[in-house]
């Protein structure tokens, strides 16, 4: 099938759909008419898109944890705990690694073994295995909206099952769930597969059902320059909008420098809206900030500080939603109690800072301009190499390193760019690889890193990158010797 950034006809979608539903036995329980009816029967307060819009109107930042276990009952118990005790505004179901690789047979085994072991042997909830009936049971056990969060290159069947179960939001995208999550799946393939997921959301939207879609903002989660993640987010937002998605949440992973982080969220919102408008898409845009995605301190008190800093950043940036870390982050999958602790700290910070923002900061204003200009260079070029087609352009741009995500595992990513922190801890470009960023902008970047080099009395070098990556486990943002 040829990749084009063009809305799939309903015929093409329904044709493709037959194959998708055959991927695993639970596919046959997905009935679109029944699903439409079910979704329409749900109360407004279980609709993800509506909850987000409401928060945006009221200038509130919503709280969402990450969580998922193998067995239905345990998963429900976990989500209810996070809802009641943790005070979640929105619930996730984090999907296990087998499902992410479409290895449903192994998911089945994981469920069996978990039953035997009396604890989850999977690192998430195998939604496809549990099927529509299981997933509906989850939704009906809680009283707030549900979203699938995963990292699945081919999430077509998963998307069918969760939406038919009343889960009104789906995380992911053809770039953001490929380049950071896969080794050799082609971009053509994942872009097509995510067009399918978006078209499915569009199908429901056409029938008056608001479905929220959320490209995965943080990408590799490590020193990703904001203009890279904003570019990918905006491209995925535009691709989704083309397929008829009207409720989009664009995300960003906290880098640690307050000025840059607030600017990145603001720039993302402004610029995405500009592009949506330019292309005539009528989209309700909201934003999400992911608390620090890098290494966490093992000590729980220190972890609380890192979590709190992410919460403060989300509040001051005015993000619509914040994805919460836990004090167990450094040691693996958290207990439900630790999960709730991270949420309580976050909620406390959000309420404390409810009335504050960074609107009077010249630093933020300057940074917004810088990010937007860099993003414009990158997106303009994608459209150029795609001869006007955003999807085609994306594939070609990645092929020749004109889009490039630092430290990504995919062989379809050039991996030529290198980021490093400047003297204030903001993430800058140390090496541009083949990114078509203008000389003017490069000069700004270079100067900022030169100041750091001078400060630290050394050359701008790869060692800075290494030092920055190791800095946070030592509790610092910038890998200097101070």
């Amino acid at each position: 099938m040829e990749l084009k950034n063009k809305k799939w006809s309903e015929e093409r979608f329904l044709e493709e759909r037959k194959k998708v539903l055959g991927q695993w036995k639970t596919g046959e329980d997905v009935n679109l008419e029944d699903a439409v009816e079910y979704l329409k029967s749900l109360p407004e307060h279980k609709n993800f898109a509506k909850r987000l819009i409401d928060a945006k109107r009221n200038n509130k930042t919503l709280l969402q944890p990450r969580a998922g276990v193998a067995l239905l009952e345990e998963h429900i118990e976990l989500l209810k705990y996070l809802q009641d005790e943790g005070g979640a505004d929105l619930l996730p179901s984090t999907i296990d690694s087998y499902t992410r690789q479409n290895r449903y047979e192994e998911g089945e085994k994981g469920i069996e073994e978990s039953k035997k072991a009396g604890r989850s042997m999977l690192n998430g909830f195998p939604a496809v295995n549990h099927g529509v009936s299981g997933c509906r049971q989850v939704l009906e056990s809680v009283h707030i909206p549900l979203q699938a969060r995963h990292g699945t290159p081919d999430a077509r069947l998963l998307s069918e099952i969760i939406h038919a179960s009343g889960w009104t939001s789906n995380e992911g995208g053809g770039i953001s769930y490929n380049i950071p999550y896969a080794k050799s799946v082609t971009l053509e393939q994942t872009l097509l597969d995510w067009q399918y997921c978006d078209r499915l959301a569009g199908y429901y939207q056409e029938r008056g059902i608001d479905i929220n879609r959320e490209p995965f903002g943080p990408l590799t989660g490590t020193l990703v320059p904001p203009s890279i993640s904003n570019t990918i987010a905006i491209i995925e937002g535009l691709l989704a909008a083309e397929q008829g998605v009207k409720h989009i949440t664009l995300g960003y992973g906290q880098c640690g420098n307050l000025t840059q982080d607030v600017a990145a969220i603001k720039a993302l919102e402004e610029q995405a809206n500009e592009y949506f408008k330019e292309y005539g898409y009528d989209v309700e845009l909201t934003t999400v900030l992911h608390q620090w995605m890098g290494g966490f301190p093992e000590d729980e008190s220190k972890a609380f500080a890192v979590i709190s800093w992410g919460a403060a950043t989300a509040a001051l940036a005015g993000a619509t939603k914040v994805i919460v870390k836990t004090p167990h982050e450094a040691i693996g999958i958290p207990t439900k109690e630790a999960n709730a602790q991270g949420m309580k700290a976050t909620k406390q910070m959000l309420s404390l800072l409810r009335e504050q923002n960074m609107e009077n900061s010249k630093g933020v204003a300057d940074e917004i301009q810088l990010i937007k200009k860099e993003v414009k260079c990158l997106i303009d070029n994608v459209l150029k190499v795609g001869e006007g087609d955003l999807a085609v352009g994306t594939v070609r741009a990645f092929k020749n390193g004109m889009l490039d995500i630092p430290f990504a595992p995919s062989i379809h990513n050039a991996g030529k760019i290198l980021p490093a922190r400047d003297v204030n801890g903001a993430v800058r470009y140390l090496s541009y690889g083949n990114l078509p960023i203008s000389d003017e902008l490069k000069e700004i970047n270079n100067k900022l890193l030169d100041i750091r080099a001078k400060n630290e009395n050394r050359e701008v070098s790869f060692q800075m990158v290494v030092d920055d990556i190791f800095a946070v486990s030592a509790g610092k943002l910038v890998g200097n010797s101070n």
Partner: protein
Amino acid sequence: MEAKIVLGVIGADCHSVGNKILDYAFSQEGFKVTNIGVLSSQEEFINAAIETNANMIVVSSLYGHGELDCRGFKEKCIEAGLEDVKLYVGGNLVVGKQEWEPVEQRFKEMGFDRVYPPGTKPEVTIRHIREDLGIEDLGEQYEMRSIS
């Protein structure tokens, strides 16, 4: 002696940051690195080692299933005639909070020559590689160079 290293992330793990850092640091050091990347099986490590006539395999595991993924690795190496190839492993090797010493002990019993906790700096591993392969430190010559 020359260091010929096969580097990769084992199992269904797609954590790639540390892998990229090690690749760069080892290469800068003058070691010959074959990086098979993330999502790599034991077989892929072994095949790469045979093909490149490697004298060392460095395995990373960041997602907590390292113990499961590494079981029987040494035995497979011996079967493939790689009994003299040094085996290193490091990362978040187990799920949840555990004491380090017993973890290290278990992996040593599994046949790994060196076992590293999360956050180990590349220079530590580089020093061990030199020691274990008997490679002289050429000092200045291989210092980190500017790449900007």
